[in-house]
Each structure stands twice: as structure tokens, then as C-alpha cells.
């Protein structure tokens, strides 16, 4: 009992100190499998597993944004949820400020949680319809007993509303009285309440209109500068991710296929999947209509319960060779800071930037 308490105290001590290590977050060989089928009891021999996240490693530096893109079902949201421990990992390590957090106990995790927060995709279902805006934003502060008095709590919530651009008189309203963009601002205020260091944004703008998307993205960029935040920005749209990210990781069927600096990735993608994703983005200029469409991804995403052999992308790859179906490609650094897992990485991939 005493041991447990002292461990919690140690953690509290550690996270109250400023951290000067290289990486804020380090994910090593993270795996998350889901048991599929309808069997009630676990049977190791017969059970099938969906490998939603299969051996994913990456790092995030303080004040930086890592974008994660991929088609639906590629495991990008599961990765985010597993890092913040909304889901428990199957295997691997998650280091936050050098501290392994994926196997901490619930009490220990409570100490870590204020540092990592999350913004969800759907602003319509991620806010409790029976709570007023004030209480939604105050909830994390109350849970972690941050404020000593009611007046301090009130001041803190109202200033958070200022920060995200909500009028103070809206504090007494309920979520249904707001538009999608404003609700997302409420969600952002809630995520900011505990002054986190890392925010995991799971498709924060996909459900919003174009003009509102731009508002929310600008707000996130402003907050990042103001509070020196790090983001993990999960999205299925490359344009959004490009706009906010310093580095981008491309995921396919539970694995990373490419990781590079944003400019580098758009300039010269090395993985055929990245190239295909880039080519699929519609360009908002009718004059460029005919110049593209040379690379198109055929077919659908295969089932993650039964991924293809060898390179998982080989069934849809335009450059597929014999070896691709047999051997799993190595995750390697082909240029400084540019990682790819492909037997035949593109040398002059069709980037979209000239």
C-alpha cells in the first residue's frame, strides 16, 4: 500500500519538473489486437485477431505536430486511443517524457493524464447534452481537483472560453444551442483545461463545414504557439494534415508505411501508397483537371483480420513485383528523417508540389 503511494508521489514529483529530453512522446512497437468472432471465452488456438495496430513506432518532439493519415480502418484512431489508454495495448511501449505509461496502474495514470488530452471527431456526440458549457469545461478541473475555490474555477473556465473564442455569456447554455464549429471549440477548451503538453486530435475538423474547418485549424495553430503544445493530428484527408503537421506518418492496414517531414513527403513521396493518396486528392482548380489522374489506387482496403502476405499493400500496388507478395519490407531510413517500408521505394515519386 505504502509502496503504491510512494510510486504515485514519485510520478507526481517527476511530472512537476520541466522535462528536457529529446522526445515528448515515444511510441515503440505498439500493438493492439482485437479478438474477433463471437466466442465467449478466449481460446488462444482458435481465436482470430484483427490486428488494428501492428508494430507501430514513432516519436513526437515538444511543440511539434505529428500528422497520422490513412484510409478508414487503417488503425489511426486506435493508435491515438491506445496512447491515451482509452484502449489497453496488446504489446509495445509508450514513453511520455521518458516515462513508460502504457502499463501504469489507474492511480498512477491519473497523475499522467492531465498532460495528455484528446479532442474528438464528432462535436455532436462528444459533449454531454445534459451538461452546461461551464460544467463541460470545468469537469476535468473538478476531477483533478485543480482549483481550490469556486471563484478560481469560474475564472479559469471563463478565461478558457476567451482563449478558444467563445463568448463568456454562453457559459450557461447547453451544447445543442451551438453550431458544429462552436461545439468543437467547447471540446478544445475542455482539452486545454488542465494545461496539457500533448493533445491527440482525432479528426477534429472532418465533421465541419469548409469555412468552419479553417477557423478551427487556425485556432489550433494559435493555441500551439501560445502554450507550446504538441499535437498528434489524426485525419483521413491529406490537405488538412499537411496544413498543421511538421511531420506526417502514413498508415496502411495497421502499420506505418512512410514517415517524413511534411514538405519532404509532399515533394517526393517514396511509398506507392502515399503517392496514390496524394493523387486521389481533388484539386480545387478546374484548369488542372486533365493533368492528373496518372496514379490511381485500385480496389478497396483489404480486411485487417486477414492481411495480405508480404507487403500488405502489394494487392493494390501499381509497381508490385514478385518479392512483394513474399517478404515483408523493412522499415528503414532512406534519407535523413525519412522512413519508408517498401522493397522498391519511388525515387522521383509524383509529388504534388512542383
Amino acid at each position: 500500500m505504502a509502496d503504491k503511494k510512494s510510486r504515485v508521489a514519485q510520478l507526481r514529483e517527476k511530472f512537476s519538473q520541466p522535462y528536457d529530453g529529446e522526445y515528448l512522446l515515444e511510441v515503440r512497437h505498439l500493438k493492439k489486437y482485437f479478438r474477433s468472432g463471437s466466442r465467449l471465452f478466449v481460446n488462444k488456438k482458435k481465436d482470430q485477431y484483427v490486428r488494428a495496430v501492428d508494430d507501430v513506432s514513432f516519436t513526437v518532439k515538444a511543440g511539434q505536430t505529428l500528422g497520422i493519415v490513412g484510409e478508414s480502418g487503417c488503425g489511426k484512431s486506435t493508435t491515438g486511443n491506445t496512447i491515451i489508454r482509452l484502449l489497453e495495448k496488446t504489446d509495445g511501449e509508450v514513453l511520455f517524457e521518458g516515462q513508460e505509461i502504457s502499463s501504469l496502474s489507474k492511480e498512477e495514470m491519473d497523475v499522467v493524464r492531465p498532460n495528455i488530452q484528446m479532442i474528438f471527431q464528432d462535436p455532436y456526440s462528444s459533449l454531454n447534452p445534459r451538461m452546461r458549457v461551464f460544467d463541460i469545461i470545468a469537469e476535468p478541473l473538478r476531477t483533478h481537483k485543480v482549483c481550490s475555490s469556486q471563484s478560481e474555477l469560474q475564472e479559469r473556465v471563463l478565461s478558457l472560453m476567451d482563449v478558444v473564442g467563445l463568448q463568456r455569456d454562453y457559459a450557461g447554455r447547453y451544447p445543442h444551442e451551438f453550431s458544429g464549429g462552436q461545439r468543437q471549440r467547447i471540446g478544445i477548451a475542455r482539452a486545454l483545461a488542465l494545461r496539457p503538453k500533448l493533445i491527440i486530435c482525432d479528426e477534429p475538423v472532418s465533421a465541419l463545414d469548409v469555412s468552419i474547418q479553417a477557423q478551427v485549424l487556425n485556432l489550433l495553430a494559435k493555441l500551439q504557439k501560445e502554450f507550446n503544445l504538441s499535437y498528434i493530428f489524426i485525419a483521413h484527408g491529406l490537405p488538412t494534415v499537411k496544413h498543421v503537421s511538421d511531420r506526417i506518418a502514413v498508415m496502411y492496414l495497421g502499420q506505418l508505411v512512410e514517415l517524413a517531414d511534411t514538405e519532404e513527403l509532399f515533394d517526393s513521396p517514396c511509398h506507392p501508397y502515399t503517392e496514390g493518396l496524394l493523387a486521389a486528392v481533388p484539386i480545387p482548380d478546374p484548369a488542372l483537371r486533365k493533368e492528373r489522374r496518372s496514379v490511381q489506387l485500385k480496389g478497396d482496403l483489404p480486411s485487417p483480420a486477414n492481411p495480405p502476405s508480404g507487403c500488405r499493400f502489394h494487392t493494390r500496388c501499381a509497381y508490385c513485383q514478385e518479392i512483394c507478395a513474399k517478404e515483408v519490407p523493412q522499415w528503414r531510413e532512406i534519407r535523413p528523417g525519412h522512413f519508408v517500408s517498401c522493397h522498391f521505394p519511388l525515387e522521383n515519386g509524383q509529388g504534388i508540389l512542383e
Partner: protein
Amino acid sequence: MEEKATLEVQNLNIYFKTVGGRLQAVRNLSFQVESGELLGIVGESGCGKSVSSLAIMGLLEFPGIAEADSIKLMGEEISHKSKEEMRKLRGSQMAMIFQEPMTSLNPLFTIGDQISDTIKLHQNCSKQEAKERAIAMLKKVGIPRAEAVYHDYPNALSGGMRQRVMIAIALANSPKLLIADEPTTALDVTIQAQILELMRDLIKDSNTSIMFITHDLGVVAEMADRVLVMYAGSLVEQADVMTLFHNCVHPYTQGLLNSTIKVHQTSGELNCIEGVVPSLKDMPSGCAFHPRCPYAQEDCKQIRPELREIGKGHYAACLHPLEGRNK
């Protein structure tokens, strides 16, 4: 006599009856879809683009009320037709593809049943013929193993495949008008590219006109011949696609274009339209866009701008249209 437009809508008004009174969702909407044309309709959610298409199809249900001076399909007035007559038109003369491929197919019937139903209902043919045509349609929309898929239930198919099936159903009787309501919004970008290409190919060799409703300007730029931009229930700008993207004159269109993230341009602060779309309950006076418009002047608050011709085939509803101010 010149060729008739596929669809001609004049002064369409749509109201919703609510406890708080009658709310107007669409105001004096008039437009045409020419034969073989792909007309894009763009706007944010709540601008009235979907309810307008439902009204044209005769699918708008209570509490929605549609009133129009005239809606003509191939020159024939359809706004006063009975439910029974509209049913005959839907599926044969005009068809619709919905946004959610997951919910727009009936999970209790096989893919084949659902396609051949449409064919049997509108064409005088035997079961066997309907089946053959259905399989031919499935092949045409690029579904592999069409004969096997014919007997599958919708749950066996992915989102992209279901949307292909929806397209097959919609085009089974070669309709004159196809309304596609955000057909690719729920799909991944790679699948979206496939579906858009398919739609382009399919209309190339038929004379079907398409009304393509979307909020994605990228998709419009790739697909449309002509574009309507709607805001808060009104048409604010109408032009061919080149003019709209390079020479738009309405501040709202300009704002939309600027806030679209362009993947082939270097980033910086995104331009955005401040504020939010007004609620139907309290529409601003005068021009509905004036509270968000950076160029709004005093008269914008009082006078509701009428749609007027700016250039050839280029219309805008703005008191102070931009000239060469975009870019």
C-alpha cells in the same frame, strides 16, 4: 425550337412548419440543368441544397412544404403531379444517389433484388431479362464477380462497392436526370477518386444530366461544367466552372475558395470566413451574408440583393460584387 433543358426550376420556395412558426429554408431558387450537363451545387450545411433536391424529386415530407412557380422535367411540368405520377417518374426519368451508402440500401434484400426491382417496375420485361440487365449494370459500374455479388446482401460489400451499387440502381433505367447528393462524402479519398472517375465515364456515353451536390470545392472543380453556390437558402452565384474558380464576384464564393486547403500550395495562416451560418430562425435583414462579409456596407443591411447577370452566363446576388479582387 431549341433543345429543352433537362430540368427547369422557377421560384422554388421551401418552408418548414415548426412550433415557432414557418421557417423558410429555400428562397426563390431558379435554375436550369441543360441536357448532358453536370451541374455542381455547393454550399455549407443548412444552405438548402439537399432539401431543394428532395423537393424536385417529390420526396420532401412534412413538415417541409415546397412551393414553386414551375418545375419542368424535359419541358413537362411536374410540380403539380400526383404522388402516383411522381412515383412513375422517379427511377425512370429521374433518379437520386444519396450520401450514406451504408443506409440507403435495404439490408434485407439482396443486391440483385434491389436492382432488378427498379428495372421490373419501370420496364416491361421478364424476371430473367431484368436479372441479365442488372448483372450487366453491375459490371458496368465496375463490380468484380457481378454474378456472385448479385446474390449478396449489402452487408457483404464495402462502402465504395455499395455506392457503386447505388449508382447502378440509379442508372438502371437510363434516367434523364440524376441527382447525386454528396455521393462521395462518406468515402475515403482513394475510393472517392474511383467513384468520381466512374461517374464521369458513365455519363460520357449517355445523355444523362447530373445535379451534383457537394460541399467539397475540389470535387466540383474536377466534375462540374457549371456551378451554383448557395448560402442560407438563396442562390448567391452561378457561373461556369472556370469563371467561378478564377473570377468569382461574390464575397462568399471567394471566402469558400480561400478557406479550401490546397494540397499543392505552401501553407500559412488559412483564410477563413468569420462567424457562422445564420439560423433559419433569425435570418439577417438585407443580404443574408452581410454579418460575415468583409466588404459589407450600410446598404447591405437593408436591401436584399437580387440575382443579376455580371457576365455571360455569370450571375451573382451581391450589391457590391468583387472585381478582380480575388487572388
